[in-house]
């Protein structure tokens, strides 16, 4: 059983900028979970740049998952191919070890956006898998939720780095987004939301609507009561 997930993110920077920023996207204010980053292989084949990096990240596990995952750090292998002629950057990341407990594979293709060639679209696919008997569904669901949250962190962090590397481009962007790059307003909503972010937003909106409804009902009820009290008083 594999959970498959797809999402796209737009970066308001051109492909060359995004490709340069990719190597420098850590550290950023949203990447405190990334501990180390190393290039472990790199070569040029057919005019394309093939790289492999080893990343270590902290791995927060829910209480019920502690019996499956004891170590706190997770090791990640990030393969990438930069094709300067086609202007594509393809990345493929997988965790090293613990793949029976939870394997998260993510592929991202960065290329010029069809709607604006000065922008870059990141098409992200993810496969989340677990083979722990009796727990695989719970682990997969947890993995997917965490993945979605990390997508938001990832694009916020990447935008922050891009805005610092290319301040002129950032200035021409939507002002609130470029400001975000300079004054780290962690956790603020992005202008261009990834689907994952939008999903979360919708659920917040739903909650907000429900809260509003509930509040309205309570107010109405209070008014009614107050009204009836008033009527009682009035009838006195």
């Amino acid at each position, binding site marked *: 059983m594999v959970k*498959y997930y797809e999402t796209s993110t737009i970066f308001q920077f051109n492909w060359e900028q995004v490709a340069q920023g990719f190597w420098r996207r850590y550290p950023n204010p949203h990447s405190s979970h990334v501990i180390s980053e190393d*290039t472990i292989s790199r070569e040029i084949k057919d005019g394309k740049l093939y790289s492999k990096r080893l990343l270590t990240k902290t791995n927060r596990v829910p209480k019920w998952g502690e019996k499956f995952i004891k170590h706190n750090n997770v090791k990640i292998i990030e393969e990438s191919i930069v094709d300067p002629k086609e202007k594509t950057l393809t990345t493929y990341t997988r965790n090293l070890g613990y793949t029976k407990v939870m394997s998260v594979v993510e592929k991202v293709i960065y290329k010029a956006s069809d709607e604006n060639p000065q922008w870059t679209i990141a098409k992200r696919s993810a496969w989340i898998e677990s083979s722990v008997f009796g727990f695989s569904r719970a682990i997969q669901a947890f993995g997917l939720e965490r993945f979605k949250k990390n997508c938001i962190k990832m694009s916020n962090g990447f935008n922050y780095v891009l805005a610092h590397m290319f301040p002129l481009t950032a200035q021409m962007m939507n002002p609130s987004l470029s400001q975000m790059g300079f004054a780290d307003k962690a956790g603020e909503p992005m202008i261009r939301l990834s689907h994952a972010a939008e999903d979360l937003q919708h659920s917040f909106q739903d909650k907000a609507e429900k809260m509003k409804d509930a509040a309205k009902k309570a107010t109405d009820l209070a008014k009614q009561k107050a009204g009836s009290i008033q009527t009682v008083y009035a009838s006195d």
Partner: protein
Amino acid sequence: MDHREHMNSLNDTCNELKNQYDKCFNTWFSTKFLKGDTNDSMCASFYSVYQQCIKKAMKEHNIELHDAQINHLETDKEKMPQS
């Protein structure tokens, strides 16, 4: 800036070599590779000393070198959408 300028290496002893290599690589990537120059000799010396350090560090951290070095992208191991 309120955050670290550089990422750390897996092992602190490689930090300096990593930063020197990364700096060279980023310059090469922007000024050569993206402009169509695929000669990568510019950072080769930084790369080789850094690699010696990081490979040793990976062994010390008990990282399965073989597993780390296997290619998945563009091989039959690569996952396909909706698979």
